């Protein structure tokens, strides 16, 4: 399909706050973006009008239980079947920060055996509490996640994290086994790295939250559902990069651009 025909649904709940950056990034490619309050989506149940869904960052309903838990349960209850149909249709879903927590709480990520009833992973308390800082994450995918196939293997993205609960963890007793499963099915998408490109290996602040195996983002086995803690949408333009003044004038685009470019081009190709 043509770019201008792509319809992106960005859902927001009370407490969502990174929605406008996400809207801006997709619109920059000429895609049509609808930013809609979750309650309206629950009424209209019109997910199949869209080619892609984005769950943006924020503090949905204050994250007063586990981050993303309240909104996740509400979505399950109000549009569970519609979401499942959307995922089964192979259309892409992306969750950033709170959206990632949301997808894990809903059981779509990791989603080894498809949509799980209970969360199979968790995004726990970060080792240093809430932190807003810039990190580097390396693209680890081998092509399974079509959305990111536009990124070269090992591509490094600089962008901020801003969360208090983003430490990716798996059930301790099966940790290694499950990690292998992630790798076997090419589900590890991003890992935190140091300036020289080597893995953070739990060093803070390169690994900003103590995430298991330095994991910053994963996809489902089908590669159609993607979640990550860092914020590429906040590094979309050159003037948002932390040291752009070193060059004098900012470049037009920042490190977040290739991330969105890859997603949009994937939808163009695929649908």
């Amino acid at each position: 399909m043509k770019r201008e025909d792509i319809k992106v649904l960005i859902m927001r709940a009370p407490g969502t706050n990174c929605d406008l950056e996400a809207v801006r990034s997709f619109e920059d490619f000429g895609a049509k973006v609808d930013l809609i309050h979750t309650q309206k989506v629950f009424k209209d149940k019109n997910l199949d009008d869209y080619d892609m869904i984005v769950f943006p960052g924020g503090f949905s309903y204050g994250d007063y239980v586990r981050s993303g838990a309240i909104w996740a349960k509400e979505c399950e209850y109000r549009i569970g079947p519609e979401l499942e149909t959307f995922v089964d249709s192979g259309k892409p879903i992306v969750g950033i920060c709170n959206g990632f927590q949301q997808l894990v709480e809903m059981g779509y990520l990791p989603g080894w055996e498809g949509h799980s009833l209970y969360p199979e992973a968790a995004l726990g308390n970060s080792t240093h509490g809430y932190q807003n800082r810039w990190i580097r994450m390396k693209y680890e995918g081998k092509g399974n996640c079509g959305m990111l196939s536009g990124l070269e293997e090992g591509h490094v993205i600089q962008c901020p994290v801003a969360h208090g609960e983003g430490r990716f963890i798996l059930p301790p007793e099966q940790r290694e086994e499950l990690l292998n499963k992630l790798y076997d099915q090419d589900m590890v998408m991003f890992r935190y790295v140091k300036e020289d490109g080597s893995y953070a290996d739990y060093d803070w602040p390169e690994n900003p939250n103590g995430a298991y195996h330095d994991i910053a983002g994963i996809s489902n086995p089908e590669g159609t559902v993607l979640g990550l803690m860092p914020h590429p949408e906040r590094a979309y333009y050159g003037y948002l990069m932390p040291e752009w003044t070193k060059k004098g004038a900012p470049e037009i685009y920042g490190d977040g651009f290739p991330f969105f470019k890859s997603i949009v081009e994937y939808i163009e190709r695929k649908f």
Partner: protein
Amino acid sequence: MSRVTESSLPFSHHLVDLMNATDEELIEIKETLGLGLSLDELHYIRDHYVLSERKATDFELQTFDQTMSEHCGHKTFAGIIDTPEGRINGLLKTYFKSLIDELKPDWCFSVFEDNAGLVDFTDDVTIAIKVETHNHPSAIEPFGGAATGLGGVIRDILGVWANPIANTDVLCFGPLDYPFEKLPPGVKHPSYLFKGVVDGIGSYGNSIGIPTVNGATVFDESYTGNVLVYAGCIGVLPKDQYKRGIKAGDYCVLAGGRTGFDGIHGVTFASLELSEESEDTSRSAVQVANPIEEEKVKRAIKQISDQKLGSGITDIGGGGLSCGVCETADTYGLGVDAYLDRVQLKAEDIAPWEIWISESQERMLMAVPPENLEKVKAIFDAEQVEVTVLGTYNESRHAKIYYQDELVGDLVLESLFNPPKLHRTTNWKPEVMLDPEVPEPEDVGGVLKKLLASYQICSKEKVIRRYDQEVKGQTVVKPLQGWNAGPSDASVIKPLHDNWKGISVASGINPKYGKIDPYWMAASVIDEAIRNSVCVGGRRWALLDNFAWGNPEYEDRLGSLVYACRACYDVAKIYKTPFVSGKDSLYNESPLGPVAPTLLITSLGILPDIRKAITMELKEAGNALYLVGVTKPEIGGSEYLHLRGELGGSVPKLDAETNLKAYHRLLDAMDAGLVRACHDCSEGGLGVAVAEMAFTGGLGVDLDLSKVPVSENMRDDILLFSESNGRLLVEIPVGKITEFETAMEGSAVSCVGVIKSEEKLTVTKDGKPVFEETLEELMGAWKTPLEAKR
């Protein structure tokens, strides 16, 4: 028999007989109802009711109590003050509002009119800005106090129909290592307050999705008993959405959080000194925060503003409904009927008068023309926000308040908002203080490291990282610069997606100068706020003043306040920088005494093109380092003397004319692309500034002290750590040196150093070495103190 008697109404409601009440009886009434009114004010109210020949209701007296409180009425700044230099007919009028008339800035869209000041940004868009204090609540309950302080100032921006895009916070605490045994009863330890306040601001600002882009953390003994929490907010508003025109017949609409017992008598509390009992007596005066509620309200107000559905708006803050409802009616020469049993409650068995003055958070009051009411309701419903039509505005000039269809209060708005003017006298003069004799240190480099590691100067990364600085994707220059997270002088925001124009936000504050001379303190912090803005390329400054002072009923506190206000007028007039908004918080006293006279100046600047913004870190080896401005032996109140255990007297003076010329020349040089980096010299002087530029950029410097422009010869330590105003360090590419020197012609400027790739700060004088330190050592000293304190 008591003059306060139960009325016949079926709920808590009292009649108060003020007819010929004696002073003793007035005092008794005041105590029965828990009012904060003075005797003069009680006389005024008594006479009012004698004329109207009826009894007052508890309800009405509570309303007078709210509107006449120092917090709402700003009695000191409105009152008459006699000084040896003559009579001042209102500090606000004489020294702040008058500047608007004299400078006639055509870019001030609306100032001293609403909850926030509005200045032009583009032809059709304005920037709204406001800074508030929330000190006493934070001293009692740091998390809730700070969070609701931020919530309140965000509502001030919503209260002019603007969309909030950035927050600021300036926090003043006692020393974190203050000995516990020295704390008087009722005073909480600085480290406890520090953690609570920082978490409170973080939790509110992050949850509501507004970046905290500028701030400061100040430590001084005088804040131990009474912390200061300044919270600011900046918003964007298209000019055609600025709606002020409530008409009779418009609905009075309340939206947002529910009303409860929290925050009752908050303003009365804010207008008293803190005491050992505050915890018990005033805990209920601290409001409870719910950022997500305000996030929803914010989204709804934006839509109502975009669709221009309202005719007036204000936030419900100090004084609760009593102030909001009566002020909106009075501002437009109207009256209002309000029905309190329509208010959504979060607590049962709450008395009508408590509903009326409760300061429960996240509430906005709007005037809505009848034809728009359904649309407005629909918008709030869609955002899951509760909304109530309280009543209707009318021509009566009375506020008639009903509960269960019974009239519980009938207020004549003229009398409510024309209280008697306070009349005070002060003959206070600052005493002359002298610098002590401090022996010259052997190891100047060691002193520099100690300064970098002082609480005042050290990295505040621990605090700043707790706040989201870049949500909304508009923060172009961030508070922490680059991967080394150096201290930016000002933040730059790009408010509009389709426009390269930007705004700079910076601040100036210095309690130590205030202890020596409030006049030069005020002058210095104004210069610092503007200087910081110049560093990133900001210009056309608008200023905000926030005074945090002790009890103005004491002659010395009042006197120093007058001196500071005079400085504001004198300096702002030369800089042509009008004050567009401000707030005073007085009565900042505890068993440990008053806070140091503290004036926070916030500067809002404009950048024609954010792609030309300048940051503070050194960029390239081989470039030249220039110092703009003259260094004088001014170490009074400096961090250096503080380190040596002294206060001193030679507080930095200010030559505003000279500085302004230099600033404009420097800005021209920046626009011409001659400047690569710029950083101002403030706390810690030249020494600290050059170190910060070096380790943030990861580049060394050869600094030659003999090249520094000075007023007279002075010792190396004084030269390096003097805090003279008007000084900036700038990095100039070798190829641009001549162009730069021509651009700066007429201003004191000199090449004081060369940037090198070797990561060392090497300081010499006339070829002789003074000291050399590695950047790693310097940055380590700067980052360690608060890093260590988790």
